[in-house]
Every structure is written in structure tokens, then in C-alpha cells.
């Protein structure tokens, strides 16, 4: 094995079963890679070798006994630092949680551990998952492994960069308005946002509870499907998690895409879309047609209202969720003469600029006299956006769009103006608001070598179809189109 070996979940399994390497040695190889690259990339914030070695040793003991191996046995994984890990520091990339060590595991973490995964560490992200470039981290930005002068996307930039750079075989991210799909697109790997409620949010530190989803990044679509199979399903600790049966995604992805109707909404190909990205995604759609899909033109008339809707609802929920960081129960406390002074100073010192901006925007939208004009109106427009999707899925099996209007931009290019950063979420927030699943799958590169992502949406709980189309596309050479 060389440092350049590209590991897949199937490859890890095969190597372990053939005793070519032990889980402990494999974890060691990944820590060596992290040692070499992380200073530059800043993808990991905290490494968890103690837990990783214990997990690897359990897998090695199972192999020695000749036990059947669970689906992720020995697979080195990275976990976004907004997901609670027992005994491993979880910062949300914020100063306010710099020393926070959760006393429990998120349900997704518990399920991954039971499936044999090895947690290498916690990955960098935008503070409290608020951002689209990973530049809002209190611990410095992440660099894009494909082009180190560029952002990896956000908010799950560290998870995407870790997988793209070979510093993890797979990773968990979270997606509220595009935070898995857009970094997947920028770093050139698949990133999947499941249906709202498909994966338990128990132990996911909340940003916007009606929009937050946990989902996987992996080096290929089949690996993303394997991780989803493990983390999906109802959880009694999350009342919004759905009691919808979890299909066998590994079997679903092998189905033919022949005859599937793919909708192409013209609203996603208008002004603001980079011409090179447009050309690649149109070539991607043509490839799907060659694979037997039927292209159907669509209109989704409320697309243009999605950003305004999203930034009212997400910030309103955030202002409420982040009220808990007050210096009383966990994290940072800045002493004050009175309780109120303590709250104010703790939050002033602990939160970064973008988080403060969003708390203020959300507080404003929920405050007396503005609630109807902003929050309630946005909730109604959310219904209209969800109807656009419901209407489209009367006619088509899937919707195909670009993931982001541009390839990865340069570090510092958009940091001065939050609104410009928000507008780049145009193609991802729509599906977030509708609660449908979506993936970004690699769809060629620009002339400058920057990855382009193609986005696939399907109806609620049809992750199998998302993965099936993405897998067929990948197998047909979509990533080098």
C-alpha cells in the first residue's frame, strides 16, 4: 500500500478480510496522511486516536475470531464538528464551545460505531454550520485540496476536503441549505442530503431544526449509499425522524435508469450561472439521456424566492436554537456583574461575526410587529416552493440542476458581503425548503481544473433513486465528462 492508494469501503473490507492490513494499521496510515496534509488544509480540528484505536482493535478482534464483519468494519471516517461525539471535543467551529466535550453520542454516531466505523477525528466547518465557504470557522478556513487558493465550500468544508484529499474514506456532514452538496461540488466528490427525517438529528447540534439533515460524503456513490444505509431510520430520540422503512440502497443503485423521466427546470439555468458550469451540467444531462433517461422541460416558478425564504426561516430558527449559549451550562462564560451582563459578554466574545449577523436577523424577523411580515410570510412561500417540487414530481422521477452557480471561488473573494455569499446558495436551498433528498455528483471540471457538481433531486424518501441515477452517471464516466 502506498500513500497514494485510494481506499473505498469495499476495498477496506477486502483488504481486512484477506489480512493484507489490520484495521489498526489502516487507521495509522490515515493518521500519517493527516499528519502530512492537515497543516495546509486545516480540514480536521480535533483528532480522536484513542477512540479510533479502540474501534479498530474491536474490528481486528472480530477478524481474528472469524466473525462476520459489519458493513463499515475498519472504515476510517471523519465527522463534522457539529455532531456530538462522547468524550471527543465538539466545537461547532465556535469559540463558545472551544472546550465542550459531549457526554453522549449522536444517534448517527452510535449507528456508525456499531457498524464498525473508525472515527479519525472531527472536521472543520463554518461556525454552527452557517456559511458557504468554511471561512466563518473560528479556527481558520479550510483549503480546497483540488486548488489550495480556493475555498472547499461550506459549511461542511472540512469533511469534503478530508475525503477529497484521501484523509478519510467517508465523512459525515450536515446540510441545512446546501452544506453537503455545495462542498461536494467544489471538492469533486459525491455529497448526499437525505430527506428531512430520514436520518435522526439526535445529537446534531441544532442550527435550523426544520432544515437540518445529516448525510454522507464519500469517494464514490456506492460508498455514500453504504453509509446512508447505516445511519438512516427512525429513532425514538428524534420525534421528527420518520418511521419509513429503509431500503437496501446497495441493491437500489444497481437498477437501470432506462426510461426514467428527468426534469430540467429552466429556472436553474438562467442569469448568474457560470457558462462553464452550465456547459458541463448540460453535457451531464445529455449523458443521462444516452443512458436511456427521458428529458422533460420544467418550470419551477418560485425558485427565485427561495433565498429570501430560506434566510428568514433559517435565521429565525437559529436565533432561537442559539439562545442556549449563555455561559450557564456549557462552553464559554465571560463573567459579568449581573446575569444579563454575563449573557451579553459571553455571547459577544463567543460568537463570530456571521453567527451574530444571523442571530440578529432571526431575532428581528421574529420580533413583535415583524413576525407576520417576515416569518409567517416566509412559511407560506415555503409551501409554494414545496408545491413547485410536488407539481414537478407529478411529471418526472428526478430533477437535474447545477449544484452551485460557480466552481470553487478564491479565499476571501466573498467574505465582505454576506448577501453575495447567500445568493450563491440559489440552487441548493430550494430542495432544503421542500425537504426532498438531493445529491451533488461530480460532473467534469472547468478548463482551470475546478470540479463541477450536478445536483439530482427526487421525491421524499426516494434516496434510492437519487443514488441509482448518480451511480449510473458515475459509472458512465460523468465525473470526467
Amino acid at each position, binding site marked *: 500500500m502506498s500513500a497514494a492508494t485510494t481506499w473505498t469501503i469495499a476495498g477496506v473490507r477486502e483488504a481486512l478480510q484477506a489480512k493484507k492490513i489490520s484495521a489498526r494499521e489502516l487507521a495509522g496510515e490515515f493518521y500519517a496522511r493527516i499528519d502530512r496534509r492537515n497543516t495546509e488544509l486545516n480540514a480536521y480540528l480535533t483528532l480522536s486516536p484513542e477512540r479510533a484505536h479502540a474501534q479498530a482493535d474491536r474490528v481486528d478482534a472480530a477478524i481474528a475470531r472469524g466473525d462476520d464483519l459489519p458493513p463499515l468494519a475498519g472504515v476510517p471516517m471523519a465527522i463534522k464538528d457539529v455532531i456530538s461525539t462522547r468524550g471527543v471535543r465538539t466545537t461547532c467551529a465556535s469559540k463558545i464551545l472551544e472546550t465542550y*466535550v459531549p*457526554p*453522549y453520542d449522536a444517534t448517527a454516531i452510535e449507528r456508525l460505531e456499531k457498524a464498525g466505523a473508525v472515527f479519525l477525528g472531527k472536521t472543520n466547518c463554518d461556525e454552527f454550520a452557517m456559511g458557504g465557504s468554511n471561512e466563518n470557522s473560528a479556527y481558520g478556513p479550510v483549503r480546497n485540496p483540488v486548488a489550495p487558493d480556493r475555498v472547499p465550500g461550506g459549511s461542511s468544508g472540512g469533511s469534503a476536503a478530508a475525503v477529497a484529499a484521501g484523509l478519510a474514506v467517508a465523512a459525515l456532514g450536515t446540510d441545512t441549505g446546501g452544506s453537503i452538496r455545495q462542498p461536494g461540488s467544489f471538492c469533486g466528490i459525491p455529497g448526499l442530503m437525505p*430527506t428531512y427525517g430520514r436520518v435522526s438529528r439526535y445529537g446534531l447540534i441544532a442550527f435550523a431544526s*426544520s*432544515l437540518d439533515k445529516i448525510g454522507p460524503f464519500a469517494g464514490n456513490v456506492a460508498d455514500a449509499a453504504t453509509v446512508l444505509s447505516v445511519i438512516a431510520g*427512525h429513532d*425514538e430520540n428524534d*420525534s*421528527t*425522524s*420518520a*418511521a*419509513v422503512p429503509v431500503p437496501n440502497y446497495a441493491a437500489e443503485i444497481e437498477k437501470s435508469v432506462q426510461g426514467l423521466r428527468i426534469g430540467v427546470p429552466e429556472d436553474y439555468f438562467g442569469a448568474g450561472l457560470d457558462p462553464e458550469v452550465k456547459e458541463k451540467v448540460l453535457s451531464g444531462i445529455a449523458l443521462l439521456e444516452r443512458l436511456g433517461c427521458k428529458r422533460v422541460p420544467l418550470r419551477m416558478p*418560485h425558485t*427565485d*424566492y427561495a*433565498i*429570501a*425564504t430560506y*434566510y*428568514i426561516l433559517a435565521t429565525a430558527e437559529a*436565533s432561537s436554537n442559539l*439562545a442556549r449559549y*449563555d*455561559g*450557564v*451550562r*456549557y462552553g464559554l*462564560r465571560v*463573567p*459579568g*456583574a449581573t*446575569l444579563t451582563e454575563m*449573557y*451579553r*459578554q459571553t*455571547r459577544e466574545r463567543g460568537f463570530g*461575526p456571521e453567527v*451574530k*449577523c444571523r*442571530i*440578529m*436577523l432571526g*431575532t*428581528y424577523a421574529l*420580533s413583535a410587529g415583524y413576525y407576520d411580515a417576515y416569518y*409567517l*410570510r*416566509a*412559511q*407560506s*412561500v*415555503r409551501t*409554494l416552493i414545496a408545491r413547485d417540487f410536488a407539481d414537478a414530481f407529478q411529471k418526472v422521477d428526478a430533477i437535474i440542476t447545477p449544484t452551485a452557480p460557480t466552481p470553487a471561488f478564491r479565499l476571501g473573494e466573498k467574505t465582505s*458581503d*454576506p*448577501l453575495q455569499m447567500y445568493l450563491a446558495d440559489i440552487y441548493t436551498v430550494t430542495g432544503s425548503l421542500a*425537504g426532498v433528498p438531493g445529491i451533488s455528483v461530480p460532473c467534469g471540471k472547468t478548463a482551470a481544473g475546478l470540479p463541477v457538481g450536478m445536483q439530482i433531486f427526487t421525491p*421524499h424518501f426516494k434516496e434510492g433513486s437519487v443514488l441509482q441515477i448518480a451511480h449510473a452517471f458515475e459509472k458512465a464516466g460523468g465525473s470526467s465528462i
Partner: protein
Amino acid sequence: MKISRKDVLRVAELAHLGLSPEEIETYRGQLDSILSYIDKLKELDITNVEPMAQVIYAPASSTAESNHPELREDVVKPCDVSGPILSGAPDAAKPFFRVPKVIER
């Protein structure tokens, strides 16, 4: 101008957020431009459109039971986490969190 300095101070107070004088001006400008953009929602007629209060309804094919997975038996389960939780608190005196005095005498 939609947002004044006074609005920023009012919102910061509601959110228990201390702000420096420079931050007040920065956020005034940012909130002003974002809220001006958000005004485009006023273009839409939302008469008779229900606000979306719930993201997902369980599909019709699921059984009556699985339509309400949130309704489980109310069974007491041991949850002995006060030790680890208090040990992560900035100022704890078991079994309490301590805060600055809030009652005037």
C-alpha cells in the same frame, strides 16, 4: 434605509448580544441590505396559502401506528448524566449551575 441604529440596539438587546460600536454600524448595513433583498417576498400573493408548519407528513401507505412514531409509551428510563453534564459547566455546585446573583435585596 430600513434599519436604523436604534433597531440594531433593540434587536441586540432582545438577543442578549453585546456589540462594539463598529459592529453596530456593520450590522446595520448588513441587515439593511439583506432585509431589502428579502422584501421581494412581498411580490407574491399568499392569500389562502397555508404556512408550512411541518416539513414531512408520513406517507399514506404507512400504518396508523407508524404515522405517529412520536407517540411512544411514557416509560421512565434511567438517565444518570448529571455528573458528566455538571463537570462540563463553567461554574457548578452539584447539583446546581451557579450564576451571578439575580435577586436584589
